[in-house]
């Protein structure tokens, strides 16, 4: 059992919600699909993937072989995140950048204390967190910024390769432009790195 794979930490939080609140929350999720509203998530730069899933009380998956159906009073909201760094760093950063949006989403969960002050918020997350039993990451040695930088550098390099037909003066200019763009995005990520606790 591990919430950690390489540089990534996987967090699962499941909180109960009154059923009538799900409709409101679903509207909020629709609004959040507008890309301009995701700039805070982008600015965090350490989240590989994140997702929220509402499991309606009467829509837990049901297989014909099950002797009885699941029957619950509450709907449940599951939040999952894959991020780089430790749990504490993540919650601190998540909370300071996304405080308002977190409140908008978790406000509908039962007994949510609000994102400020931080201690009750962390207590709430801890209380509702479920540990991961199996965790796979395709590039465990690379943080999100490593991946984004690698993609940028490789794409720019492919453009540079197309310019090798240019005359010397032009190619020199193109090469220097590539170098300036790439110099802060270089390195060799992907190794095991230091162990996270």
């Amino acid at each position: 059992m591990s919430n950690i794979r390489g540089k990534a930490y996987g967090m699962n939080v499941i909180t109960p919600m009154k059923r009538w609140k799900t409709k409101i929350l679903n509207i909020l999720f629709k609004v959040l699909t507008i890309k301009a509203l995701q700039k805070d998530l982008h600015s965090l730069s350490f989240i590989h993937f994140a997702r929220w899933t509402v499991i309606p009380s009467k829509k837990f998956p049901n297989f014909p072989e099950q002797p009885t159906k699941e029957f619950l009073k509450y709907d449940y909201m599951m939040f999952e995140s894959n991020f780089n760094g430790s749990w504490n760093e993540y919650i601190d950063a998540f909370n300071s950048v996304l405080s308002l949006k977190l409140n908008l989403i978790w406000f509908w969960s039962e007994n949510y204390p609000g994102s400020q002050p931080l201690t009750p918020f962390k207590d709430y997350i801890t209380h509702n967190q479920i540990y991961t039993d199996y965790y796979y990451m395709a590039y465990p040695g690379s943080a999100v910024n490593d991946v984004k930088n690698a993609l940028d550098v490789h794409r720019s390099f492919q453009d540079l390769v197309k310019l090798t037909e240019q005359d010397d003066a032009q190619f020199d200019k193109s090469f220097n432009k590539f170098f300036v763009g790439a110099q802060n995005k270089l390195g060799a990520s992907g190794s095991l790195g230091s162990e996270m606790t």
Partner: protein
Amino acid sequence: MSNYYEKFYGYTGFFPILKEVREVSHTIELRKLLSVLPNAGGSLFSRTGLVHGARLFILDDVVYNGHPTTAEHLEYEYLAVSLTFDGELEFLAEKLAEFGGEEFKSIFSHCYGYAKVELNAGSILKFLETGQVTTSFLYVEADGDLQETLRALLAQKLITEMLAKAQFLNTADKRALVLETADKIRSANLPLAGDFIEERN
């Protein structure tokens, strides 16, 4: 409400775990299995060539958050499955049918509905769809598909080496070095999904 984020698919599923009375419960066996199931290159989700991230956990029960809410309990324990991958669920089912093998069976044979599943794409797809809960909101930060990302991570290292060498070269040599590096990137074996890079080299 969306299982999609651009070209990525976010699959969320809950699979009720068998409640048969036996010496060791299915839940305990499954948890033990998941704790030792390989997650490096060549493991179950690595072999699909599509999955960026996968996590499985057992939901024993729901959490009680105190007064004034009412305490309630799950009738079943569930295996929760979250996968973020390239493309469509149909593609993943095809890959799981082709490469899932015994590992896929060893996990899901502890769940209701698996007994009737055959190792073909249609049957696996139906099973995954029955256990699926629609993801409400999915977010993926980097925009490369898995193969492009793995190649880019490899390329980044080779490009770094190239730039170190290029510093004192004339234009013709720089051009040759760029083309040589491009060839190296093209012909290099792609890193295996799930591995640390140094483990491979």
